[in-house]
């Protein structure tokens, strides 16, 4: 079984987000880029599955749609254990563009299972996995909290407030994972870092695909109002503030 993990490259989640002067794009100055944490979990789970004897997993590849400056982040995916990588040389404007580029690669390469994270920590589209499945005509399983592969049989679990589902999925399919699916993301070993360079990173030219969305303007969220401390003995004052200032009662 061959697994493809889709990885977005996003700002480090501790980044102080700023926008350009025209407020129409992210100001990328000084940003440290990382693998989208959800996608990193997906990759970690794929690596865990392969280590299990009898999984039948023979290859784990990663794919990213982005420009050359994202390659150091792709190298990290290779350093932690992915066997090979694809970079589609394009900066996608929306989820459909990203899904279309991935679909084009998957049509040419025989992958059995594509895993994506629940969403990306930058634009939070939460759409690439489902769009990709639709474009490929594959089954799609979203919000998956457990994924295992034994003898190439894919078993999934999905939790909701009212029930827990166990699904036996048929390959090929797209699985979108949520938190809790894997242990902590892996730290690359020094040997892994040095061997990443010698792994195959295939550069793919993009196919034509018009984005369906464009960003008009970004706005910073309103600053949080200051916390007011109320003495525990002054309950009436607290009720008054909640009712007349916060308007929540």
């Amino acid at each position, binding site marked *: 079984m061959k697994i493809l993990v889709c990885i977005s490259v996003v700002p480090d989640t501790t980044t102080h987000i700023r926008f350009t002067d025209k407020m129409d794009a992210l100001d990328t100055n000084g940003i440290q880029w990382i693998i989208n944490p959800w996608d990193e979990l997906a990759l970690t789970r794929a690596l865990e599955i392969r280590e299990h004897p009898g999984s039948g997993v023979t290859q784990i590849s990663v794919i990213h749609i982005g420009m050359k400056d994202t390659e*150091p982040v792709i*190298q*990290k995916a290779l*350093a932690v254990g992915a066997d090979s990588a694809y970079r589609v040389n394009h900066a996608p404007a929306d989820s459909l563009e990203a899904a279309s580029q991935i679909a084009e690669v998957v049509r040419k390469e025989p992958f059995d299972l594509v895993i994506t994270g629940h969403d990306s920590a930058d634009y939070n589209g939460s759409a690439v996995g489902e769009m990709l499945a639709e474009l490929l005509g594959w089954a799609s399983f979203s919000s998956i909290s457990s994924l295992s592969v034994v003898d190439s049989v894919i078993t999934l679990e999905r939790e909701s407030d009212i029930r827990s589902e166990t699904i036996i999925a048929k390959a090929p399919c797209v699985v979108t994972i949520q938190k809790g699916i894997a242990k*902590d993301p892996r*730290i*690359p*070993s*020094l*040997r892994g*870092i*040095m061997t990443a*360079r010698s792994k195959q990173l295939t550069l793919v030219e993009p196919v034509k695909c018009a984005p369906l969305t464009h960003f008009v303007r970004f706005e910073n969220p309103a600053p949080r109002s200051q916390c007011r401390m109320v003495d525990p003995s002054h309950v009436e004052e607290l009720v008054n503030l909640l009712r007349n200032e916060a308007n929540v009662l």
Partner: protein
Amino acid sequence: MDFQLTEEQKMIQQAARDYANRELIQDVLERDADSIYPAKHVKALADLGFMGMMVDPKYDGSGMDTISYVLAMEELSKVDASVSVIVSVNNSLVCYGLEEFGTEEQKEKYLRPLARGEMLGAFLLSEPEAGSDATSQHTLAEDMGDYYLLNGTKNWITNGNSASVYIVMAQTHPELKHKGINSLIVDRNSPGITLGPHEDKMGMRSSDTHSVMFTDVKVPKENRLGPDGFGFKMAMKTLEGGRLGIAAQALGIASGAYERALKYSKERKAFGTEIFNHQSVAFKLAEMYTKIEAGRLLCFHAAWLKDNGLPYGTASAMAKYHCAETAMWVTTEAVQIHGGYGYVREYHVERLMREAKLTQIYEGTSEIQKLIISRDIFSR
């Protein structure tokens, strides 16, 4: 001149940072309080390749350059210098000496498992009456034909209990003074080795430090590093690299304290504003940052010289001197910026201050570094 790190170097730096911030931080206060040896961290760091960082991959090392080693040491030391000193001793003092001066058989038997982290090493030079004056070795390695008979006491030995292999400096020809010293590879479980109690230290409390006593310990002749009488030269050569490791450690202690002080200064308010708006605090942070950056450049320069096969003894002495003094000053001021909070363990800076003190003392005191630097500049 290129001040850019390579992508690999950045990844190594990030890997060390991730390990420190995810794993070391979790139990560092407890290990410090109770002097608990960080066995699980030493194993994990070995699995990641940090215990034989610069060893040639043909001996199962990671084959990294010295810049990468400096980066890793700084990141680990920002969080826990007790762990980074274990990494430093194994890399700089034990693996380096074996790889540089060992025979092929010695490398196969000792260097390979040390680089893989299956063995841990210790470097035994200091004695009760021979610290800075390392030429005055009282430990004797009597030549008995097929073997050396080792007798004496070594002090302040990092990894004293946890190591499985010792590199021991001992006198074979007292009449030749320092030219009679040999460097011997000694198996820790050899009959005749006893340990003193665990030293109850001011800082670096999680690393195990012991005195080690040798009573009629037989060491095979093939365990001598280099030719007869080469031990002192070997030790001094090895310490050049060791100093760079400790310089990077001191740099990490300083930058760890600085980062905590900077963060605190943006959160803590006094007189109606965050305290970094007060010039007395802002100038202190500016001075800290400048001294740390200068120290980083000194470390990188010494590492660059070493990687390019150029003499780096004075450069590493300058790096260690500057970084150790900077670490002591920065950590003291970081406690000051934190005020009362800085004096309690929960905020980490008092621990970093205790750790900083040792960097001015071990692997050559600040005074010894100045001696090395002054002798060099006067000889030009």
